[in-house]
């Protein structure tokens, strides 16, 4: 695998990890914008715009975009998070020129009014769909409470009200502000040629408006809160809890990933042995989410309603024990093996490498080969874990429960 990077005259960055031994190519345009970058009155615009991107530009209609991706058998999709909007495709090497033309075209959409009005209905349906998924509702509510007053608390989908009121003029203004070349990274992995790729990108993106968008990345300082959302007809109680963890650029990031694996992986972790293996909880996991400037320890719990308070207290006791005594060398070693194995297996497919390569570049402006990723994992010691726990102890600062319980006491 060979790494290349370049910057176009207008500021668009290209990073590529090329590998002639694989069969496909994966490419993603990442725009450094998401719900945290929305101003008042435009809640949900980033995600809505991601949908509108597929409605065509001055060269292609919506039908063209869908048809062309299908004609070449590409797997393509897009997603919007709190801080990144990305458009990706996986395809066979011979289709590079077609993909570059259509994929790059998504970032300069025509935003036609009739398409806008119709797609608004789809967005409202998507909001309705997520309302029927209790775990999503809990997650969204927890993000909002945890980051209250901080841009990371702004929800991705928006609400029925904010989407209904949003105008295409607001979307155009948002697009002009955020979809500038300096705010975009193109990441490519797999079997293609660097020189050809650069030519293609220059041809299709060289004319994009330069510009860069800054965001305030002050670390959030959440205030403790708990909320209970009652759904009488539900059978399970789901709980999402959050606490501060290292930001994406922190030196403690890998230690955090490993600690989350030791304490709260879906199998073989402390939470697993204590709560899932015993059948008390359906889900009891700890995850680490990294953001620009902030980070989150996220606890997921799904259990019988009557057990909720008791299990949340058990998790608190378990976290306190970890904060006090750390983890063992054997636990850390198994977690390293687990994470290393995921890195290696994922690396066999270009799509698997794409997220590592692009996340690393977007958040840290660095490239790590598979070997370097493995080396850094091996280098994490118990001392790093200790330092991590001192700076970011495991806690349950924000709690949101959803389910049949009308009220719950989380201590």
């Amino acid at each position, binding site marked *: 695998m060979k790494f290349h990077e370049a910057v176009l005259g207008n500021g668009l960055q290209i990073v590529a990890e090329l590998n002639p*031994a694989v069969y496909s190519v994966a490419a993603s345009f990442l725009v450094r914008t998401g719900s945290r970058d929305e101003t008042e009155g435009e809640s949900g615009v980033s995600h809505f715009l991601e949908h509108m991107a597929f409605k065509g530009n001055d060269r292609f209609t919506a039908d063209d975009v869908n048809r062309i991706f299908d004609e070449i*058998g590409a797997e393509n999709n897009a997603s919007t998070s709190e801080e990144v909007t990305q458009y990706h495709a996986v395809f066979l090497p011979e289709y590079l020129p077609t993909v570059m033309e259509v994929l790059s075209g998504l970032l300069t959409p025509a935003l036609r009014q009739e398409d806008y009005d119709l797609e608004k209905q789809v967005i409202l349906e998507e909001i309705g769909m997520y309302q029927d998924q209790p775990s999503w509702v809990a997650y969204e509510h927890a993000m909002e409470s945890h980051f209250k007053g901080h841009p990371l608390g702004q929800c991705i989908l928006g609400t029925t009200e904010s989407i209904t009121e949003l105008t295409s003029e607001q979307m155009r203004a948002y697009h002009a502000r955020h979809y500038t070349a300096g705010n975009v990274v193109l990441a490519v992995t797999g079997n293609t040629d660097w020189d050809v790729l650069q030519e293609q990108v220059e041809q299709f993106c060289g004319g994009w408006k330069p510009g860069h968008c800054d965001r305030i990345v002050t670390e959030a300082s959440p205030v403790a809160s708990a909320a209970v959302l009652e759904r009488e007809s539900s059978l399970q109680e789901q709980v999402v809890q959050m606490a501060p963890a290292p930001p994406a650029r922190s030196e403690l990031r890998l230690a955090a990933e490993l600690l989350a694996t030791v304490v709260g992986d879906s199998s073989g972790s402390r939470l697993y042995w204590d709560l899932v293996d015993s059948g008390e909880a359906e889900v009891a996991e700890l995850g680490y989410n990294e953001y620009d400037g902030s980070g989150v320890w996220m606890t997921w719990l799904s259990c019988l309603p009557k057990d909720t308070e008791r299990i949340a207290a058990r998790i608190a006791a378990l976290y306190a024990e970890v904060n006090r005594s750390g983890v063992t060398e054997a636990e850390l070693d198994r977690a390293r093996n687990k994470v290393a194995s995921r890195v290696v297996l994922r690396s066999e497919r270009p799509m698997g490498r794409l997220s590592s390569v692009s996340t690393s570049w977007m958040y840290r402006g660095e490239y790590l080969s598979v070997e370097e990723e493995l080396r850094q994992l091996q280098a994490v010691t118990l001392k790093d874990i200790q330092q991590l726990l001192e700076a970011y102890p495991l806690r349950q600062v924000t709690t949101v429960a959803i389910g049949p319980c009308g009220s719950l006491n989380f201590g």
Partner: protein
Amino acid sequence: MQLQEIQTHTLANGLTLIVEPMRAVQSAAFSLLLPAGSNYDPPDRLGSASVLCELIMRGAGERNSRDLTEALEQLGVQHREHTGNSFLTFSAASVAETLPESLRIFGDIVRRPHLPEDQFEAARAGIVQSLRSVEDEPRQKVMIELRRRCFDAPWGLPSDGTLETVAQLTPDLCRHHFESCVRPNGSILAVAGNVDPAEVIRLTEDVFGDWPVLADPVPATAPRGPHRDHLSHDSEQTHIGVAWDSVPYSHEAYYDAWAAVGVLSGGMSSRLFTEVREKRGLCYSVYASHTSIPDEGRVLAYAGTTSARAQETLDVMLAEIVRLQEGISQAELDRSRARARSALVMQQESTMRRASAMAGEWHHLGRVTTLDEIRSRIDALTVDSVLQHIRQFPPRDFTVLTIGPQPLEVSVEVP
């Protein structure tokens, strides 16, 4: 495409091994399918396979539950256990060097599990909680309940059982499920990755060669549920499931059937996505997919939409499905084929996908088709052959199930 060198080897006790060496990768993956799935649950004790599948990982051979999990973690084995209608499936992937040790551990798991009685309640509680979660997620529930209404039992039954039947299970029943169903005859082990087939054959003989044959159990059959049904739920959306008959995977016209479903739901330019979502904005999610049991096939379709627009969504879906018989275009067929071709090429990048695809082929066909062979079947499709198939097996007699605040009318029907 690279020339594939797939080898098969059937042990004297009836376990079939399929191996595909893949030189460009570092990993090896396997899928081990045991013919002991939920089809063999006693009809009033559904869920015995599923609880067994939870219990079987809790200690085997020389290792207790924790030692076993930790041994797999130490080897860097990513694994997943799954209860299906036909099979209990064990899938695992790791770097190729650890395949022998990983396979030996799984040999213990399926042949020498402890099935500890004192952990039965914990294993059952896990299944009960996941069944309760499905009740809270109508999007999942509608497809599980749709299968029940379009396949006869045991094929349509939910593989985790139901809250009522799982409550009736005992440790003895799960042990009985193990003793009467888990066997080498009819089991399939598919291995793909950076391996030497001769070594894998030796290893498999060593791990499974002396596993004694058991008589094949016979599943109990029963009629399917109602053709038209509505389940009331105070959800935001109405969740719509539609099913109709198709041919099974083993049928000579399978690829025609697959192409017809591709025209309906093969990509973002397919008819359901275009007509229901893109032109009318009726929903976020709409799809149809082909599913197969050994002698029967179905197409299962889904849409989820706000209740006020649910009737229109169902009407448009059914109209599009019925309209297939009026014709398809060369361009539509070409797009389906392009998607299939690229998916086939990309399958070669994933040891896990190859292992599971080969095991599935053996189950349905009793042989493994090479990717080249599948590609030539896809190349041979024509608009006429697909259309002829659609007219021979027209979508009709729809099973329709809705979950949501209000029932819907099935207003479109063909003779």
